[in-house]
């Protein structure tokens, strides 16, 4: 089972939640935001190709933690690959890349979530994950 590193070093210059929000809503027009006790939650639709549904996703983020992405609707198929046990999407391989709070969610997490959905749609039709996968590279 993959374990997530949930905290990141304080030494990194963080991008404020307000700045993250501005970038997300500029790039992804359907996204809206709400804040709750230091946590910020973005919700919005992503449609990875012209034949797919619009997937409603939610991104939860608080400073010094990693953003967590979940598909709210439509429900994902049972046994969908590349998920953590809590149902959030596994968008990167921590051995290759780590979240830092000087990164933009609009540059990384959301494009990867759209790409995850793109390969999920192909998986539904072929039963094969055709995107880059750590499973193919782990000994």
């Amino acid at each position: 089972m993959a374990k997530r590193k949930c905290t990141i070093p304080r030494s990194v210059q963080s991008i404020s939640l307000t700045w993250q929000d501005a970038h997300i809503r500029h790039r992804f027009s359907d996204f809206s935001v709400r804040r709750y006790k230091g946590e910020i939650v973005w919700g919005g639709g992503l449609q990875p190709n012209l034949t797919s549904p619009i997937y409603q996703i939610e991104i939860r983020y608080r400073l010094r933690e990693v953003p967590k992405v979940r598909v709210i609707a439509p429900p994902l198929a049972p046994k969908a690959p590349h998920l953590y046990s809590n149902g959030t999407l596994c968008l990167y391989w921590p051995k290759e890349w780590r979240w830092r709070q000087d990164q933009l969610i609009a540059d990384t997490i959301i494009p990867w979530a759209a790409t995850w959905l793109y390969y999920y749609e192909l998986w539904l039709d072929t039963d094969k994950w055709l995107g880059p996968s750590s499973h193919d590279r782990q000994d």
Partner: protein
Amino acid sequence: MYTLGTHFQQLLTNIHPPQERLDIARDLPPLVRDFLKQHKEFTTLRPHSHLVGSYGQDTSVGDVKDVDFLVRVDGKPEENKPEAKQLIRDLKKVLDDLPEALGYTGCASIDIERARRSIHIYFKGHDFHLDVVPCIAPNGFEEIIYVPDRGFNKWIKSHPVGVIKLLKELNDDNGGKVRPLVKLLKHFRNYHMQTRKPKSYWLLALAIHHIRVTDDLDTTQPLAVLFHELLDAIYCQYDHLLHTSDTATPNIPDPILEHNVSWNWSRTHFETFMRRLDEGRRWSGKALNSDDKQDAIGWWQKVFGEEYFPSEVGDVASRLAEMGLPGRSLVTSSGLIVPSKSTTGIYTPVQQTTFHGET
């Protein structure tokens, strides 16, 4: 439920017009445009011409065999000046010189004949039809124009460019699904109806009506679901006519001007269309309700034809997977994964990543 997005992507590719036909549709109209522009006895006004119809809307399917082509002339439509009937005659006379001017002779010759509101040009060598429709456009093509009604010898309102713009807006506002939906509806008609076909414009008007006016289609759904919902919605809109009258036919409203565009739909042709619709909505419903992928594919093949709806999409999926690779692809503001930028919109490069996780 299997919505088979990859299969539908391949279906859309399979019904897309061949490139050589699109090239002809692109290349021939400018020849006619230039011929008329330079003609001394027939004056056209800038910008002289505009492509409309399915080709102009980018909703063509199958073999593009004809293109509608507006030619702008001067006039006062309310005073019937020039006289609509006479203008069609004049245009026909001028276009009679077209074959010689273009050097088309012998087996590559051109047939020119007068139609109800246009001059019909048939390029035999290309098996390609061009309907040249003269129009008075007081405020340009972007506003309401007037086209001849030869039978009644008058000019009547039309707004084909408005329809093209409306379709683009609806398509942009609905995840790019409206054009594919119209194409699927046209292909469904072509596949199941050799004769008695409802006109493409009626199908377009029906699709627009259900998306924009009645708002009974959920365009956040997969295209497969949307197509089934459209067939069902059209059937339910008109099935009462089958039970309450022996003669009634639908009044399909024009998407912009709202007049009845299907005024000449015969009852028997309407009944045939409703039978095909009923079959289509039942088959597509079975496809969506099936728990077995192969079974679902089989039902969709009844709807769209085995030669168009693929059984197997391994190769297609591999190509799409390659196209979407992080590090090479882009994501649009609505989440579409694309290989390159289009002219407008915000695009974000997808950085390289490797998907991970326990499952």
